[in-house]
């Protein structure tokens, strides 16, 4: 069943409340007019199709839901996503997919700075470029970038993996290029497939790319532990006070 909701008639509170009270079905949201906190806290397998651009934190903490935006998104798209799918046709501002624990975020356009910051298991596929400090402190999950990555990619990264097809302006602290293994190629193929839309639908084929054209970046793991010297022990070994 599809329910149509016009945000020029209904408040954000009413919309989110309905989404929280429903177990299933599809909602079409018209006139979002850049609303913040739209479709946040969904914990059921509902589908929300938003016709137009959204503000901050759209689909925040999404769990099992599907939220699709035909437009652009403000800061913190799908922040802390747990599972399910969030997909937008346009560009996303800063911190898209921040701290996401699971699920898939697809951005057909570009993503701004700090895309995938502190990600904890989410997969993010970006059709265009990502801004500086993307995958900052990223802990787990995969960030796939079909375009270029701006400066300081993967700064202080933990165990997340970053695949970039285009140029990388610079890598951040402790982020290095790594060898692509067959498992990595599998992961990448799976994600590109999951992110691609079937032929004949809106922006079909936008995510098609050859896994072999990507490079892989990840942690050198040199910042994992503090370095502690022990001169006293060395002195004792030399028989010195």
């Amino acid at each position: 069943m599809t329910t149509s909701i016009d945000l020029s008639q209904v408040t954000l509170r009413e919309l989110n409340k309905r989404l929280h009270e429903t177990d299933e079905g599809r909602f079409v949201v018209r006139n979002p007019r850049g609303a913040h906190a739209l479709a946040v806290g969904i914990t059921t397998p509902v589908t929300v199709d938003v016709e137009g651009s959204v503000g901050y934190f759209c689909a925040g903490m999404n769990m099992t839901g599907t939220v699709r935006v035909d437009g652009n998104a403000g800061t913190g798209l799908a922040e802390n996503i747990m599972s399910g799918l969030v997909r937008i046709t346009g560009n996303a501002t800063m911190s898209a997919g921040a701290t996401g624990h699971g699920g898939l975020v697809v951005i057909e356009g570009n993503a701004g700075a700090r895309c995938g910051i502190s990600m904890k298991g989410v997969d993010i596929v970006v059709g265009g470029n990502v801004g500086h400090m993307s995958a900052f402190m990223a802990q787990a999950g995969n960030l796939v970038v079909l375009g270029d990555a701006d400066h300081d990619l993967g700064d202080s990264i933990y165990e997340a993996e970053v695949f970039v097809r285009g140029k990388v302006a610079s890598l951040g602290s402790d982020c290095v290029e790594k060898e692509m293994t067959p498992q990595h190629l599998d992961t990448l193929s799976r994600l590109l497939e999951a992110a691609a839309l079937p032929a004949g639908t809106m922006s079909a084929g936008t995510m098609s790319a050859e896994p072999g054209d990507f490079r892989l970046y990840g942690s050198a793991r040199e910042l994992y532990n503090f370095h502690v010297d022990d001169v006293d022990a060395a002195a004792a070994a030399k028989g010195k006070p």
Partner: protein
Amino acid sequence: MNQQQWHHRESYTFDRNVIAEIRRAANTGIYRIRGWGAKRELPTFDDLVFLGASMSRYPLEGYREACATDLVIGEGRAERPVRLAIPITIAGMSFGSLSAQAKEALGRGATAAGTSTTTGDGGMTAEERGHSETLVYQYLPSRYGMNPDDLRRADAIEVVVGQGAKPGGGGMLMGQKINERVAEMRTLPEGIDQRSACRHPDWTGPDDLMIKIIELREIVDWQVPIYVKVGAARPYYDTCLAIKAGADAIVVDGMQGGTAATQDVFIEHVGIPTLAAVPESVRALKELGVHREVKLIAAGGIRSGADVAKAIALGADAVSLGTAALIAIGDNDPALDEQYRELGSAAGFWEDFQAGNDPAGITTQEPELASRLDPELAGRRLANYLQVLTLELQTLARANGKSHVHNLEPEDLAALTVEAAAMARVPLAGTEWIPGDS
């Protein structure tokens, strides 16, 4: 060596502790990381006294007349405001920094006393939720373990901007404490020296915070209050901005505030004392016309009912305890002196919360050590301690003629030092002089 000779006297600038620290730094090449809070002498609530009753002020009868202590947070905005029997709460301390047994003890003690406890940088555990009637869920930059189900299980949400021990620093948990369970809750490899983010990943500045608070309220369907916690750095401005962002309560944590693990240089040299911070936050609340409506929770070095009463008299609505609560449940117990000595310290001095080898079983993830703490007995000790603080608070409030502790006011106070008079903006004892007020 004969100490009583001029040429053998100890240097004030380079005393034995300073020399030891220089030697430690030279040996290891790493700054000192430790727990506890600032250890040096600072202006505190001890520098204030209550005036008590006199010809013009009537006291209340000590044991008979009512002196209420209750507090409601988030009324009018949240569907389920937080209702506390006493204005003394337990501060956020993470599972990870503390053992599951310690978290349970805090929950039991707080619940018995009718107050709240708080999660920390590491998510919510079932033990903690189960044993805390009122549980505040921290929303930190790291977002370890953050999820919508726990968010909806919380009785309040505390957005942590900073902590008094380290305004501007993120959480730290050393490798010894990152065991399998802790690593999994935080999605990190076991055994790493974890340094969490110091900035929130998806908002910067007060305008973003306003939208973040709306998002959190929407996720929990406006059920519970939202607090904002800041380290005491610029409390006047931070309080103004937190009010504007829509917080129901502001937690201001002074530089004495405890920590599980922070650089010593950060603990001792960043932030301002609680005594100096509270009046600045109150000034912001009053100027914006929301004093006693948006609640102020003061933290950092609160030890006694006198500290609680003075913080409230200066305009706070409640206080929050970290270190004192840990001591109440058994930290630094003299009975463990020998074991503390084996670790190169002694009961009463031990500050190595980061090390994970706490003989009291509180700041550890070692199952054998943690099992030494009996959560039920430790919870009773905490409940008793909270009761004593409450009785002391009421004693002071009655002495000043107040039927509710929130009626305490700066006029009930005098300062013993010029510094305290200037910071607290109450007259120097025996004068009408408030430095800075002409």
